[in-house]
Each structure stands twice: as C-alpha cells, then as structure tokens.
C-alpha cells in the first residue's frame, strides 16, 4: 500500500532528523566545556539618579544601594535598599515624604551572551516594602469662588508610621564596562499591594514606590548607576 509506505518513510525520516538534531545538541554541549567559565559573585551597586537629585535638587535627599547574587548562569537573586526624603510642591499642596524601603526579588537574563561576555538584558520581579512619614507643609483651600481673601495655610502636621507594599516589574540592562565593573539602567513598573495611609490624607509619595495616583495602584520608576562584582568563584 503506497499510503502506508509513505507514512512509514515519513516516520523514519523524522526519526533520522530527530536523532540528527540530538546529535548536534550533544556536540554543542561538548564544545560548551571549552567555554569561558562564568563568574559567580556578589554585585553591589549605587543608584546615581538619587545621588544626582540629592546634589543638585533641594527637594530631594536620598540614596539607593542595590545588590544581586548569581544563582545560575541566567538567574540572579536581587534587591535594593534605599532611603528618600522628598518635598513635593503641587499648586494646592506642599508636602514632604520621608522613609526607608527594601525591595527583594530576582532578575532573569533574557540575553544570550557571546563567549566571555557577561552582560544582561533582564526582566526582574521585586516585592517592595516601605515605611515612611508624610508631612503637610502648606496648602491652599480649594474654592471655586475666591471672592473672599484667602491665604496659604502653613501647617506642620506629620503623619508617621505609614507603610506600603508593592510588586514591581523591572526591565533593564547591566553592562560590564570594565572587568567586574558594571553600568546599569532599569525601568520599574509597580503595583501597590497594600497602602496604609493616615486616614486623613492619602499617601501621595511613597519612598521606593514614588508618586501615587488617586484612582490607581500603579507606579513607576527609573534607576541607573554603577555596580561592582566581588567575584567568588568561576564555573
């Protein structure tokens, strides 16, 4: 029967191809042993956006340190720790937010390096937690009719013990500029998981999460800086 013969031939051809590709894969594993070993170590970094704003902008004081540790060739556990003291001036309200934050998670390298190179184009996930206070420095009462004289109200009401938690997606690059010295840049997309405000006033800025939005849980951020890897071993 020509039909069944055709199917058998196809099956055999498939067997041959599959076998062939398996052979190729095996070959590449063999050649892998000649590959330059990957360095494992703790990479510590400093954010330069915050440093720049601290130096050149009176409204912000803060820093962020980052770290990651390679678990496998492509996966790193990673995290950031930081502090921010930011004064925001809006047309009707001026407030300061002050606090510390911690973000823990991991980065997965989407980029396949050439032999001997160690760069990352990565997607990362973080869980962030922040504890902070918010102070209202001054405000204007909003009225649609300003025929009565009005003034800017100076206050100093501080709401302490505020906290927030969020999930964060990071997309970024880490490029080895010099041996073990890296430059990094990432974009962060965040979503609040919990947001404990004072009850009287919304949390308008959360250290680590950044600006909040009235009707949303989404936040964003950007970070760039330099990092150094303390090499532990090669594999």
């Amino acid at each position, binding site marked *: 029967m020509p039909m069944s013969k055709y199917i058998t031939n196809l099956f055999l051809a498939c067997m041959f191809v599959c076998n062939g590709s398996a052979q190729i894969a095996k070959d590449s594993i063999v050649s892998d042993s000649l590959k330059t070993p990957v360095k494992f170590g703790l990479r510590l970094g400093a954010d330069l956006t915050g440093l720049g704003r601290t130096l050149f902008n009176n409204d912000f004081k803060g820093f962020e340190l980052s770290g990651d540790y390679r678990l496998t060739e492509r996966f790193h556990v990673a995290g950031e720790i930081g502090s921010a003291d930011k004064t925001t001036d809006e047309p009707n309200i001026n407030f300061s937010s002050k606090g510390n934050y911690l973000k823990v998670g991991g980065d997965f390298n989407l980029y396949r390096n050439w032999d001997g190179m160690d760069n990352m184009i990565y997607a990362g996930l973080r869980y962030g937690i922040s504890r902070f206070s918010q102070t209202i420095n001054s405000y204007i009462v909003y*009225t649609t009719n300003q025929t009565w*004289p009005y003034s800017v109200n100076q206050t100093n009401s501080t709401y302490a013990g505020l906290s927030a938690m969020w999930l964060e*997606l990071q997309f970024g690059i880490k490029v080895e500029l010099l041996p073990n010295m890296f430059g990094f840049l990432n974009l962060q997309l965040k979503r609040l998981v919990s947001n404990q405000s004072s009850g009287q006033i919304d949390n308008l800025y959360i250290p680590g999460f950044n600006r909040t939005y009235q009707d949303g849980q*989404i936040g*964003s951020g950007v970070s760039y800086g330099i990092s150094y890897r303390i090499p532990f071993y090669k594999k």
Partner: protein
Amino acid sequence: MKLLTRIGIVSLSLVLMQCEKDDICAESTPTTPSLIIRFYDFYNPSELKAAEDLNVFGIDNSGNTFDIIGQTTLTTDSLALPLPTNLNAASFRLYLGYLDEETIGNGDDFLTEFQTEDLFVSRACGFKTFYSELSAETQTDSDNWILSTEVIQTEINNTIHAHVKIYH
C-alpha cells in the same frame, strides 16, 4: 526581544495613561461648599417665594462691601454664598429690588458664624473647608425685608440641601 519590546510599550502606556487626571482639580470634585439659602414666604412658610432683583455683596472687616456673585441681580428662590475659608464669620448685604447703582432697593445685613475644619481632597485639589456650628441672623434695621432667618443644617459639607431658610 520582541516580547520585551511589547511589554515595555504596554508598561509605558499604562504609566502615561495614569498621568492626566491627577494634575488638574476636576470641576466635578466636591470641594469647599457654598452656603445655600432658600427664600420662603413669611406668611405661608411652606411655600418658596423668590426674592426679586436680589443683589448680594460681601462685607469685609473694615465694613466695605465687595462683589460676591458678580455684578448681576437675580430673581431667585435659592442662593449660593461662598464663605471665607480662614475666618469664623462672614457678613453679607442682601439688597432686594436692586435695579442699578442709583436704585439700590432695601439692603439687609445677613451675619453668619461658623467653625471651620480643612479636609484633604486630593493631590490636585488640595484641601476643602468643612463648616460646622453654623449660626445666621439678620441685623435689625429700620426697614427689614428679611423677616425671619432659620438655620436648618448647622453643618455645611455639600451643596445638595439648603442650610438656611430666609422668610420674607
């Protein structure tokens, strides 16, 4: 890489979409409420009675009057008066039969007192004032057109319901 680009574009548009609304205080947002007065017939207290050719001025601390509803006269049975946000009293002069600056009709001084508390609204709107313990009276003169004043709501936190009834 294609996936990464796509995720990047989606994230960016999500962030951008969020930006608009918070930056301008929307007109529909309830902010500092005005004092709502309704005019009733003194001789038939359950019936509304429009005040004819009404003009209203604010009176500042030194006794000078200033425009408060614009240079118009109204014939209305309901009036919204803005209150100051940083004082605990406000005086108004209500003219009935105000035709022009020559014919100003009959002016009565309407005095209010209240407590204020500033409440947070939003990033864009800032705060609004909440008024409580409202009291109102009409100063007696030789010819009052306002015959009686009644506070029906001592708390002013919206402009849906009237706060004061004026009988004339």
